[in-house]
C-alpha cells in the first residue's frame, strides 16, 4: 500500500483543522443571539429535529452554546499557547547567554515542573481574580517549562555547531548568532510546541472553569456548560454534558493530530 508523504498528511490535517476553526469563527457572527435566547416553553428539551442537541435549563439551544464555548476555548487556548511559547523561547534564549543564567532557567523549569499543574493554575487564576485574562495568564505561566526544556537543549546543541563558532570568530556578536543562526532553527520546534500546548491549554481552561476558578458563569464556555450539566445529570439530561464534552474532545484530538503530523513533516 502506498502511504501518503508526511507533508501531504500534515497539509490534509492542517486543511481539516482550518475548515473546522474557520467554521467555528464564522458561526459566532451568524449566531449572535441564538446563544443566549431563552425559550421557556422548551426547557431541558432532548435532542430532536427542532432542537438539534437539545436545550438547557433556560431553554437555550445547546448546539449554539457548544459552538460558542468551543470558539471561546479556541481563542483562550491560542493566546495561552502563544504566550507560553514566547515565555519558553525567551527563557531558553536567555539560558544560552551565560552558565549562571542557564542554571537559573534550569532551576525555574525544575521548580515549576515539580509543582502540580492544576493547583498552580487555580492559585494563579484565583490571585488574578478569575475571568478570561486570568485564565490565559494562568495557563500560559504554567505550561511553558516542558517546551522551554526542549528548546534549551536544542539551543545548547546548536551552539556547539562549527558554523556558530566560525560566525563568532568572524566577529559576529552573540545577539547576531542568536537571531541569525540559532533562533531560525527553533521555529519548527516552536510551532509544533505551541500546537502541542494548545490542547493542554483548552483542557485546563475548561477544568479551571468547571472548578469555578476560570471564566465567568455568564460566558458560554465549555467548562461552564459542563459545570451546569453536572447539576442535571442525575435527572437523565445526558445531552447537557455529552455534546459540549464531545465538542471539546473533537477539538483537542484535531489539534493533537495536527501537531503530531507537523512534527513528522518538519
Amino acid at each position, binding site marked *: 500500500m502506498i502511504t501518503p508523504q508526511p507533508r501531504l498528511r500534515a497539509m490534509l490535517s492542517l486543511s481539516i483543522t482550518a475548515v473546522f476553526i474557520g467554521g467555528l469563527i464564522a458561526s459566532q457572527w451568524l449566531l449572535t443571539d441564538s446563544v443566549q435566547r431563552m425559550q421557556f416553553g422548551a426547557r431541558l428539551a432532548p435532542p430532536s429535529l427542532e432542537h438539534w442537541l437539545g436545550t438547557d435549563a433556560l431553554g437555550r439551544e445547546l448546539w449554539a452554546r457548544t459552538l460558542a464555548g468551543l470558539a471561546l476555548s479556541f481563542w483562550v487556548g491560542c493566546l495561552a499557547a502563544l504566550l507560553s511559547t514566547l515565555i519558553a523561547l525567551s527563557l531558553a534564549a536567555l539560558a544560552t547567554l551565560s552558565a549562571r543564567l542557564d542554571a537559573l532557567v534550569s532551576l525555574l523549569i525544575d521548580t515549576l515542573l515539580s509543582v502540580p499543574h492544576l493547583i498552580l493554575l487555580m492559585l494563579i487564576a484565583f490571585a488574578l481574580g478569575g475571568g478570561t485574562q486570568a485564565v490565559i495568564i494562568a495557563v500560559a505561566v504554567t505550561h511553558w517549562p516542558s517546551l522551554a526544556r526542549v528548546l534549551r537543549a536544542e539551543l545548547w546543541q546548536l551552539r556547539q555547531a*562549527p*558554523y556558530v*563558532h*566560525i*560566525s563568532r*570568530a*568572524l*566577529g559576529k556578536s552573540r545577539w547576531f548568532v542568536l537571531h541569525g*543562526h540559532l533562533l531560525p*532553527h527553533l521555529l519548527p520546534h516552536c510551532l509544533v510546541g505551541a500546537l502541542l500546548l494548545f490542547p493542554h491549554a483548552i483542557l485546563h481552561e475548561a477544568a479551571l472553569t468547571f472548578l469555578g476558578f476560570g471564566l465567568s458563569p455568564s460566558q458560554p464556555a465549555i467548562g461552564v456548560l459542563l459545570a451546569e450539566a453536572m447539576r442535571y445529570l442525575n435527572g437523565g439530561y445526558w445531552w447537557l454534558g455529552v455534546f459540549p464534552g464531545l465538542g471539546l474532545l473533537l477539538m483537542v484530538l484535531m489539534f493533537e493530530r495536527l501537531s503530531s503530523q507537523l512534527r513528522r513533516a518538519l
Partner: protein
Amino acid sequence: MLEAHQLGFQFLSGEPLLSGISLTLRAGQWVGLSGDSGAGKSTLGKLLAGYLTPQAGEITLAGMALPDSGIQPVQWLPQSPELSVNPRWRVGRILREAWTPSEAQCQAFGIHPRWLSRYPQSLSGGELQRVCVLRALAPGIRFLIADEISTMLDPITQVELWQALQQEAENRQLGVLVISHDSALLKRLCPQRFHLSSGQLKPW
C-alpha cells in the same frame, strides 16, 4: 607573528594530547603540519585559532594575547565544509557573513555566481569548501589554519584552490598553517614542516 609557547592540552577524560608544543608562524610564511590520525593536529589548529584554551603555555599574536571579541585575526578552516555553514542560509549570505568578496576574488576561487542563490545542501563538498575558504579571508585576517581543506577535492580543483590561496596570502602577507596527511602537498606548499607525534612536534 603568531607564537605558541610550551602549549599543553588534554581533553577532560583523557591523557595529555599535546605537551610542550612551541611553534612560530610569521606573516607570509607557510608551515606544514602532518601527523597520524588522533595525534592532535586539529586540536593544535583550534588552539592556535582560539577555539580551545590550552591548559599550559600561551598563544600570542605580536606579543599580545588573542582578542576575546571581534573578528579573529587567526581563522580556522575545518575539514568538513558541510558543518561549517548554516544549512538554512543561502550560499550568497554565507559568503558575505563577514565581508563582501569582489567578483574577481570569487572567480579566482572558482565560485560560480549561480551558486550564490542556492542552499549549501545543493553544492558538493568541494564547491562548499571554496566558499568557506573565501569567507574566512575577511579583511583583518592575518593567519589561516587550513585543516585538511583539500581532502575532498579532485586534483585539478585542489591545484586551483591552493593557487588562489597562495596568491591571496602573498598579496596580503598571510601566514598559513597547512594541516594535512598528504606529505607531497606539504612539501610543495610549505618550506617549513613539522610532524606531530606523541604530543611533540618534530621538524621534517
